[in-house]
């Protein structure tokens, strides 16, 4: 396990990058607003980024092994529930609960 100095450094680096991304654009608002490219990207980036992060989460899914059934079932529950009820919290908690239950009860060892 990593030591405390590393954890503090990782936190500091993450915080600096995140805050910079949130604060710096306000200093260049005029230029950002007048740029057609920025407008084009800003309309499409958020949806695309989420799709990419979604794939990233599933990058190590062992598709050919039976233990992939737990996350795949949980994924179906999450997506299905979300398309039906549109309640983010409900979908996330239900999906995670299903995955934990399947991992713990069915696919142990």
């Amino acid at each position: 396990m990593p030591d405390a100095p590393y954890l503090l450094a990782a936190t500091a680096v993450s915080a600096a990058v995140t805050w910079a991304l949130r604060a710096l654009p306000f200093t260049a608002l005029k230029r950002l607003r007048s740029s057609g490219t920025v407008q084009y990207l800003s309309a499409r980036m958020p949806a695309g980024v989420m799709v990419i992060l979604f794939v990233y989460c599933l990058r190590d899914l062992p598709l050919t092994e039976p233990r992939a059934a737990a996350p795949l079932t949980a994924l179906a529950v999450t997506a299905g529930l979300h398309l039906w009820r549109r309640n983010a919290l409900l979908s996330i908690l239900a999906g995670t609960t299903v995955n934990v239950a399947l991992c713990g009860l069915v696919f142990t060892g």
Partner: protein
Amino acid sequence: MGLGLIPLGLALGMLITQTGLPWWCASLFTAVVYAGSFEFMLVGLAAAAAPLATVALTALLVNVRHIFYALSFPLHRVNGRLAKGYSTFALTDEAYALATGAQARSWSGARMLWLQGLLHLYWVGGATAGALLGSLLPGSVAGLDFALTALFTVLALDAVGERRRDLSTPVLALLSALVARLLFPGELLLAAFALFTAALLMQRRARGGSTCHA
């Protein structure tokens, strides 16, 4: 709506101690980094003692979307340097969604600031409680990390649903991610973002100025 952060924070906190990180990481990450989805990824990176450059790059890629929040977040209503500083620091997805929603049009800067502080508090409190709870549980709970997958599933469905007529964006993003997964599995995020951005820029060029300057 902000109360939803508490159970999510609990899940993050439990994941932190179950992964083997000390419980105070939950308070530290949530208070200082304060970027929900990235913090879930940070747990994995920190547990593997990933190089700081990798941590910085991942933070950049996961949070790059925040650049665009400045275009519509009403920061001009918040007065004072310190308050403005905090407001940008706490400009999370939830804060952005609330402050730019229809009901927020009449909100004062002070009200927005209070709301951001409250969301922050829920998040830190939930995660800290979750971490302590996770360290009390005997053994480990397998499969908790699915919370991150579920989070992005929901965020992707919502974001894609908001752009009903625009099928090319999710398709381009999906293709970029799959190509990156096949060709550059070690640098999936970086490769996928680069491919996706390039694809969007080419698409804009192909469509010409007609859609933007009309």
